[in-house]
């Protein structure tokens, strides 16, 4: 009897040991994994996609905002409808866009093309449904209105995962300033070009993740565990850019391109006292919401990413330097202006072949006399000229808060002819923003400012971007005297016919030939006009550039009228009364 009891007891011990070992296996070896699996069943993770920061103008108008879009999916075990007819039902409710303008405007081809798109979407959905028995994505980036239409069908088991995409209420009005949002290698939103690229870190948001225990019906268990990874809304940007000014600029530039037959055009408007960019436009442009349909060469903002030879607009800077150094006065007379100036094998001539002996600085600027500029440069000296060119901010980036700014370095070796040609803006490469900033020095009493598009970064704490003075380039007196020369250039220069009556304006025309394969093309020019108004208390400094105008190659007949047309609208916009 005793051995049988012992054997029975041993079996019990063995069985208990097996159970204990098995329990130890589940609890110690697989415990962590099983606990995680269990948590998955009763815990739910809510991921709330937060919005990227917005971009608003100085007058609080939305330039870039967010639009909710949805990724439509179906969880097949929970879907009660007819799976076979689902693709047909959904595809008939989706919105399709014809991106090819030729097809979109063809009344015969457009309906056929739309049917093709619908059938393709339906076929894709059918293929996905046949491959999976779980969750299937049916359509991506559907709009709020399509979502509502799908809701109205009463289909159950469909899911709508929210995401956000950029919306541009003013369309392409300031595409070159804002840039656009694409995707990075990981599929996350990433800003490219302009403000979106430069301020990507500030604009980027972080999703809010909330993990909470829930009951079988999905109600939160308030006594259960709760974890929160707080999200962060993207910071928004408030700009110096004024929507009304930008609209006026784009509207006038668009008309001018048509009127003068120019290939492209640019306008930059800056507040000379703060460096705030009030408007910046370039045509042709692109639609940032459909950037992928355009040539990538259009993405770059030409005002900060392309260089050009400024031509005669540069003369006012050399005159300012000469006046500041005291090497010329208003009553001095040019003693080399009677004819072409010979330097080595080169001959410096005037633009119209007319020469004025004993020309004064005023006459030199008014008639845009190249020989007179060589006289001023010689008075100033080559090294001083280069020093002033650097001080006016050429050869370095301006520091504008846009992504793709470039700066062409200045030449290292200067010869006498280089000094001479630079004095009238040839042989030197600048960007439009550099040129506006440099002329802004004259408008701002001699101080060089750092240009900024953003006024304030808005967030939990607002971060104002304060005006930054880089350096004082010329004295207030030299700035005032140069302004007087520029006023005379407007009043008596080649573009005097276009000037609006009643206002004192300071400006200078420029016509630069375009260098092609190492030499200048006589037919292709960049016509420009730079100036500020009102001359004695400037509200804005503006540069206008037209590339290859066909009606006339001269800045005085193309860029200048455009400049004055915009200036007229801006003075009205800022409610500035006439001062004459």
């Amino acid at each position, binding site marked *: 009897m005793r051995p049988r009891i012992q054997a029975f007891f041993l079996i019990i011990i063995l069985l208990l040991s097996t159970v204990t070992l098995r329990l130890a296996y589940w609890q110690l070896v697989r415990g962590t994994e099983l606990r995680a699996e269990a948590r998955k069943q009763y815990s739910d993770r809510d991921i709330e996609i937060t919005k990227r920061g917005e971009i608003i103008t100085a007058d609080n108008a939305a330039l870039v905002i967010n*639009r909710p879009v949805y990724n439509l999916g179906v969880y097949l075990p929970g879907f009660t409808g007819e799976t076979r007819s689902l693709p047909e039902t959904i595809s008939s409710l989706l919105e399709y866009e014809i991106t090819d303008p030729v097809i979109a405007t063809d009344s015969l081809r457009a309906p056929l093309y739309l049917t093709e798109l619908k059938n393709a979407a339906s076929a894709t959905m059918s293929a996905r449904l046949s491959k999976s028995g779980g969750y299937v994505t049916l359509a991506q980036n559907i709009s709020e209105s399509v979502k509502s239409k799908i809701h109205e069908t009463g289909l159950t088991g469909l899911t709508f995962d929210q995401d956000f995409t950029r919306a541009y209420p*003013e369309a392409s009005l300031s595409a070159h300033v804002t840039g656009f949002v694409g995707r990075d290698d990981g599929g996350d939103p990433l800003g490219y070009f302009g403000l979106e690229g430069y301020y990507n870190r500030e604009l980027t948001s972080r999703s809010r993740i909330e993990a909470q225990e829930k009951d079988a019906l999905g109600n939160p268990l308030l006594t259960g565990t709760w974890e929160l990874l707080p999200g962060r809304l993207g910071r928004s940007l408030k700009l110096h850019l004024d929507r009304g000014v930008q609209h006026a600029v784009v509207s006038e530039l668009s008309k001018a391109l048509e009127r003068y037959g120019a290939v492209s055009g640019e306008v930059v408007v800056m507040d000379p006292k703060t460096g705030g960019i009030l408007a910046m436009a370039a045509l042709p442009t692109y639609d940032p919401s459909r950037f992928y349909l355009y040539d990538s060469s259009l993405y770059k903002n030409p005002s900060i990413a392309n260089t050009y030879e400024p031509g005669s607009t540069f003369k006012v800077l050399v005159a300012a330097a000469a006046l500041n150094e005291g090497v010329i006065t208003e009553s001095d007379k040019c003693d080399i202006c009677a004819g072409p100036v010979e330097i080595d094998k080169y001959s410096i001539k005037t633009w119209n072949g007319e020469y004025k002996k004993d020309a004064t600085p005023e006459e030199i600027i008014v008639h845009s006399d190249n020989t007179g500029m060589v006289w001023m440069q010689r008075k100033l000296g080559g090294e001083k000229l280069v020093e002033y060119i650097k001080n006016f901010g050429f050869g370095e980036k301006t520091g504008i808060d846009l992504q793709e700014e470039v700066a062409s370095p200045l030449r290292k070796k200067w010869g006498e002819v280089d000094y001479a040609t630079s004095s009238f803006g040839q042989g030197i490469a600048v960007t439009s923003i550099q040129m506006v900033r440099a002329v802004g020095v004259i408008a701002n009493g001699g101080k060089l400012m750092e240009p900024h598009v953003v006024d304030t970064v808005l967030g939990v704490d607002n971060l104002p971007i304060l005006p930054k003075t880089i350096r004082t380039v010329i004295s207030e007196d030299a700035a005032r005297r140069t302004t007087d020369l520029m006023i005379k250039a407007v009043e008596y220069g080649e573009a005097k016919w276009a000037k609006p009556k009643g206002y004192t304006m300071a400006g200078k025309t420029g016509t630069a030939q375009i260098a092609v394969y190492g030499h200048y093309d006589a037919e292709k020019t960049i016509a420009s006009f730079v100036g500020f108004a009102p001359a004695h208390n400037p509200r804005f400094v503006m540069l206008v550039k037209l590339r290859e105008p066909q009606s006339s190659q001269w800045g005085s007949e193309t860029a200048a009228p455009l400049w004055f047309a915009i200036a007229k609208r801006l003075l009205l916009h800022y409610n500035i009364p006439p001062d004459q």
Partner: protein
Amino acid sequence: MKLVKLFSLIIFFLVVTNVVVANAAVDESVAVKSINAEIANLSNQNIVLKQQIAALGSLSNIQSKVEAMGFVESPQIVSLTSSSVALR
């Protein structure tokens, strides 16, 4: 014996409290879920409305509507000065 009775009473009280609190929490959780859904819905509506307001208030939209109504830009702007205004 008194101590046993006291502990029994406390245990009973705690059990009842637990049941009542858990029951109330379930009711609250339903309300929380409903409020969360309402918040999400309202914030979504705000985003959509903001977008619609921005689109309707855009200058290009206003310009096209104004032009359709027959308004034109003034070809000439007259500035009034003291000499051009009757002073009495």
